[in-house]
């Protein structure tokens, strides 16, 4: 009976990595390949009044220029497809794509970008999500600055009765926590190589983490069926959620379709840092009702997520955060209000943990404060409240294969911490 599962089998791709035989997208060079650079918005918010690419098109060494007019299908992509590949008019963040040039090399493409005549009517941006929510704030989006969930302007989680819980509590503990904008910073920057293959199909070497998810988006942009795109990938130099969004494939694909020649579009580290999706910042307000014995019997959480100029995965991240922001605890009364706000920043999207890392960051400081407020050891609070098998989460899911207590016991042991006997006696299998 083969038993490889659980064994430290060596990485299948490990030999490729240590010999540098592993091929990443920027390692691909095709004969006659041209290089793309993109003109991006120099302002945070504005309206394009005039765009003239003719001088760039005439420049020696330039093979093609594309703008919003060159998108044959939907000029929109994303999990919530609201972001244009090239913005035709409205600019919602600094760095938004306006036009792309393909040329014999990147230097020539950069020179050509300078020949594009761009007239933007600059508008007042809004960066602070709390200001963006105020009446009369500059509108990032025509429909308003707050995302509409199926529950309205807040993602609502209502479990039990928090007011009753607060009334029955011995102590109320409040806290406000913020997390910052984070960059995925994978060592492999965003890059795409596109060409027309021997069957006259569009082929794209991609760094996508999600071949089929992005293939679906690309079919809409290019107005092509799935089998007219050969999407080549599967090996990526680090993603962490950055390659969960398309950054280059749409531009490279559109250019290859237009000029019918191989193209490479790669972001410099600076372009990647400035313009690509981020882990958006959050503000969390917690109010807990706690019994003196350590039980958290009510938890109210209000979250505000800054998703930048486009939805990206922002609303999804707020949803996912709301499911678990109350922590891995059996709290009988939970109220969560999750708000997702547009501001004039690069779109926030997924990054390792999809909002759960941010919720954990806040809930774990709050829970430590709960322990401090009632004079208990934090271990005691974690153990007493930890989910057991069959407990319900705030969105009423049933906890299966619970294992937090077992993980805590082992961690304490490895940290050289002697837990009290009554905690050591606990198990996730029952309360």
């Amino acid at each position, binding site marked *: 009976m083969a038993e490889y599962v659980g064994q430290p089998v060596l990485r299948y791709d490990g030999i490729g990595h*240590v010999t*540098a035989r592993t091929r990443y997208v920027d390692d691909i060079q095709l004969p006659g390949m041209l290089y793309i650079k993109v003109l991006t918005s120099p302002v945070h918010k504005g309206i394009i009044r005039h765009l003239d690419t003719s001088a760039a098109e005439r420049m020696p060494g330039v093979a093609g220029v594309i703008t919003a007019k060159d998108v044959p299908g939907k000029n929109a992509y994303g999990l919530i497809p609201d972001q244009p590949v090239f913005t035709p008019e409205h600019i919602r963040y600094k760095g938004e794509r306006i036009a792309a040039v393909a040329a014999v090399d990147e230097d020539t493409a950069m020179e050509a970008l300078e020949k594009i005549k761009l007239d933007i009517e600059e508008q007042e941006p809004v960066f602070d999500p709390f200001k963006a929510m105020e009446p009369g704030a500059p509108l990032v989006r025509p429909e308003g600055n707050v995302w509409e969930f199926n529950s309205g302007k807040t993602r609502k989680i209502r479990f039990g009765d928090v007011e009753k819980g607060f009334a029955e509590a011995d102590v109320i503990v409040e806290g406000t926590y913020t997390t910052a904008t984070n960059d995925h910073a994978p*060592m492999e920057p965003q890059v795409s190589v596109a060409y027309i293959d021997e069957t006259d199909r569009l082929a794209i070497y991609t760094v996508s983490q999600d071949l089929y998810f992005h293939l679906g988006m690309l079919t809409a942009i290019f107005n092509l069926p799935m089998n007219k795109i050969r999407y080549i990938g599967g090996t990526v130099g680090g993603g962490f959620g950055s390659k969960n969004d398309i950054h280059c494939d749409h531009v490279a694909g559109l250019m290859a379709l237009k000029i019918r020649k191989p193209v490479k579009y790669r972001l410099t580290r600076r372009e990647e840092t400035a313009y690509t999706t981020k882990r958006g910042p959050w503000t969390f307000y917690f109010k807990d009702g706690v019994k003196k014995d350590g039980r958290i019997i009510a938890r109210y959480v209000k979250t505000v997520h800054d998703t930048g100029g486009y939805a990206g995965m922002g609303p999804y991240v707020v949803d996912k955060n709301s499911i678990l922001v109350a922590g891995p605890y059996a709290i009988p009364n939970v109220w969560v209000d999750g708000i997702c706000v547009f501001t004039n920043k690069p779109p926030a999207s997924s990054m390792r943990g999809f909002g759960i890392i941010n919720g954990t960051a806040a809930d774990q400081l709050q829970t430590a404060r709960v322990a401090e407020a009632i004079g208990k050891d934090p271990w005691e609070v974690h153990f007493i409240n930890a989910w057991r098998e069959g407990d319900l989460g705030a969105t009423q899911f049933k906890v299966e294969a619970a294992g937090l207590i077992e993980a805590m016991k082992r961690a304490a042991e490895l940290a050289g911490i002697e837990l009290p006997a009554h905690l050591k006696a606990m198990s996730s299998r029952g309360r």
Partner: protein
Amino acid sequence: MKYVLSFNLNGLPVDTLVKATDTLLDVLREKLNVVSPKRGCDNGDCGACTVLVNGEPVRACLTIGLTVAGKNVQTVEGLQQDGKLHPLQRAFHEHYAAQCGFCTPGMLIAAKALLDKNPKPTREQIVEGISGNLCRCGTYVEVVEAIQAVAAGKYKE
């Protein structure tokens, strides 16, 4: 205006036409298709393009190509001898010191530069030796373990 650049690459002479502004990374990757040095930042921050020039580790992205004229340049493509993996390559593989693998060539070169000068480094010296090489997968613990194993003679031929 282009210049002829001649140097020794992994033991073999090469010559190519380069611009004065081409970096060694441009020369290796774009002109010679030697792609083990990775373009991670073009700014000397990440170390993914680390190569050896006359035995010294340098950032290929910060090195003007023409400055290596007549010198010996070593990359991961030249680590294997007689078809056999270098001890560091074996150790990295067996210690899972590569995850996505993108920083790995630079790490290997940094490790080789360290061990060539100091075959028995302390843990602190190893950490210092690779501290200029960023790995976003976070393989540092495994990289240090792999280099320690080589230094301890566990990967002798």
